[in-house]
């Protein structure tokens, strides 16, 4: 643990006179030195445009850029040509949403017709989605005339699977669902949902933002059709994300962003496009960010995703046991005994989340307060905002314990007695 913590310089600072207790890795994680060095090394040694240049530097840059793709692909059990770089997970969702719109307009090769949506077609999401895996589908429905339906959340914060079996039906074209919730921390039964969707020939779009950083994932085995995740949540830099798509699907999809480096032949009126993944990577790419993400993946691999998952389950348990034993603190989502990633969101009765966060911050504890980009889920659970502590491989037991101790002081300070 000490070894790990030494790799993260940002953790060694004082905030308001207290050692930083960073419990906001669910929002964004910290970078180890090796990741920063990978990026700097690139700019010091071989920075050049990729897939465009023929000189020595450009060739070297292209090689490491594609090697980074291979590293990330292997990490999630995917073939290289199924990995598309994006700026963040959000852009990956939009990519598929807009590509389907374009197909619906009749753009792309004839094979793109399979992605056409229109009145009568249904897109299914869940009530626990992050806005990034919800609004792009709302917009796709608006653009195409398809209907958006959703799988409701039960009182305990888990998906209503009985309802899901009714809601997914032969009109369903796509089911978009998160792997692990960024609010209630639970891991959804993806295999079961994939079976439901594939039984009616619907595609499955997985939001893997909170799973890829924390669990060992094999996207091929999961058999989802698409998945997205973000580099900045898995020890990587900002500005890079990944869209996974089954190669045979990507091959038939019309492009989303268009411009340089994704074409074969262009004249003034028309353009022909490259095969995936280049078809979806317009303009100069996030080269140094891709290398840095590959370096982050190496770090995770080296630490061991099995070990990370076990460690985080332990931290999650400690959090849940702790918060549920504080009077007046309500845990969102299922309690002790249900496996979760290392995060917990709570409501402190009578104290607004922003005030809770301020109180914790004063003690050097960084947590997220608000709706965590999941307004519908908060509404469903009867709160407008919550306070979320989220851990990662560098989080210590002591940090969790300090959080719990300070959280227990919140209600007394704000004069809430129960």
């Amino acid at each position, binding site marked *: 643990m000490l070894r790990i913590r030494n790799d993260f310089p940002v953790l060694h600072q004082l905030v308001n006179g207290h050692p930083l207790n960073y419990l906001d890795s669910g929002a964004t994680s910290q970078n180890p030195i090796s990741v920063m060095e990978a990026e700097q090394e690139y700019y010091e040694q071989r920075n050049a445009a990729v897939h465009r240049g023929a000189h020595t530097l450009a060739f070297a840059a292209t090689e490491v850029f594609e090697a980074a793709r291979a590293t990330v692909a292997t990490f999630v059990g995917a073939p290289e040509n199924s990995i598309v770089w994006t700026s963040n997970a959000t852009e990956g969702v939009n990519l598929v949403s807009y590509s389907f719109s374009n197909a619906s307009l009749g753009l792309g090769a004839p094979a793109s017709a399979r992605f056409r949506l229109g009145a009568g077609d249904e897109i299914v999401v869940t009530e626990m989605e992050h806005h990034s895996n919800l609004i792009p589908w709302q917009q796709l429905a608006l653009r195409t005339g398809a209907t958006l339906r959703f799988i409701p959340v039960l009182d305990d914060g888990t998906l209503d699977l009985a309802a899901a079996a009714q809601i997914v039906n032969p009109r369903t074209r796509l089911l978009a669902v998160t792997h692990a919730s960024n609010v209630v921390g639970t891991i959804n039964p993806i295999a079961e949902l994939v079976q439901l969707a594939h039984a009616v020939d619907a595609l499955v779009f997985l939001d893997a933002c909170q799973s890829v950083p924390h669990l060992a994932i094999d996207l091929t085995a999961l058999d989802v059709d698409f998945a997205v995740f973000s580099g900045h949540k898995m020890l990587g830099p900002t500005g890079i994300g990944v869209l996974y798509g089954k190669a045979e699907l990507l091959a038939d999809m019309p492009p989303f962003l268009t411009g340089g480096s994704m074409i074969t032949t262009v004249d003034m009126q028309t353009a022909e496009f490259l095969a995936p993944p280049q078809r979806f990577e317009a303009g100069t790419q996030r080269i140094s960010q891709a290398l840095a993400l590959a370096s982050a993946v190496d770090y995770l691999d080296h630490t061991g995703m099995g070990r990370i998952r076990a460690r985080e389950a332990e931290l999650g348990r400690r959090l849940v046991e702790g918060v549920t034993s504080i009077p007046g603190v309500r845990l969102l989502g299922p309690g002790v005994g249900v496996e979760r990633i290392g995060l917990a969101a709570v409501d402190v009765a009578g104290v607004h989340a922003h005030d809770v966060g301020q*109180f914790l911050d004063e*003690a050097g504890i960084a947590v997220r307060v608000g709706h965590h980009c999941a307004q519908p889920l908060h509404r469903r659970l009867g709160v*407008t905002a919550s306070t979320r502590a989220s851990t990662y491989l560098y989080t210590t037991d002591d940090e969790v314990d300090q959080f719990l101790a300070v959280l227990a002081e919140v209600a007394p300070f704000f004069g809430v007695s129960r």
Partner: protein
Amino acid sequence: MTSSAMQQLYQQIILDHAKSAHGAVPELPTLDAGSVSAAGLRQAQSHQVNTTCGDEVTVRVGLTGAGTDAEIDEFAWRGAGCSISMASASVLNDTVRGTSVAESEAMLNLFREMLRSRGTIEPDEEVLGDAAAFAGVSKYPARVKCAMLPWVAFEAALLQLR
């Protein structure tokens, strides 16, 4: 643990206002432009959101008379948010209800100046009343928005009645 900094930020006056907020109403239906109340007041309303945390406040004002001499004879607000923003709305109610537009704008400027001062302005309690309790907020730049939220809504509502 509860440092004196916390106690300076969350002064008892603030916690009290947050707990029993003055002038808060459960509903404020949207208002058409140029509305006039049953009592003949020229009304306007503004809804403001703090996008960082989702806090929101709607402020309604009703004026008698015109220009900067007009009197604020109606004031109501509703909102959801942290204790700073809710207390600030309550204090705003106490501060501007019944004053002239000119007086209330002067107060707003003083309040804003104090909040932006990063702790350098010592508030005059004689002038600011309970609003002086927000001096501690100015040392927390991230919370200045919370304290300003209702005042910004108030300012925007007045602007519509210019």
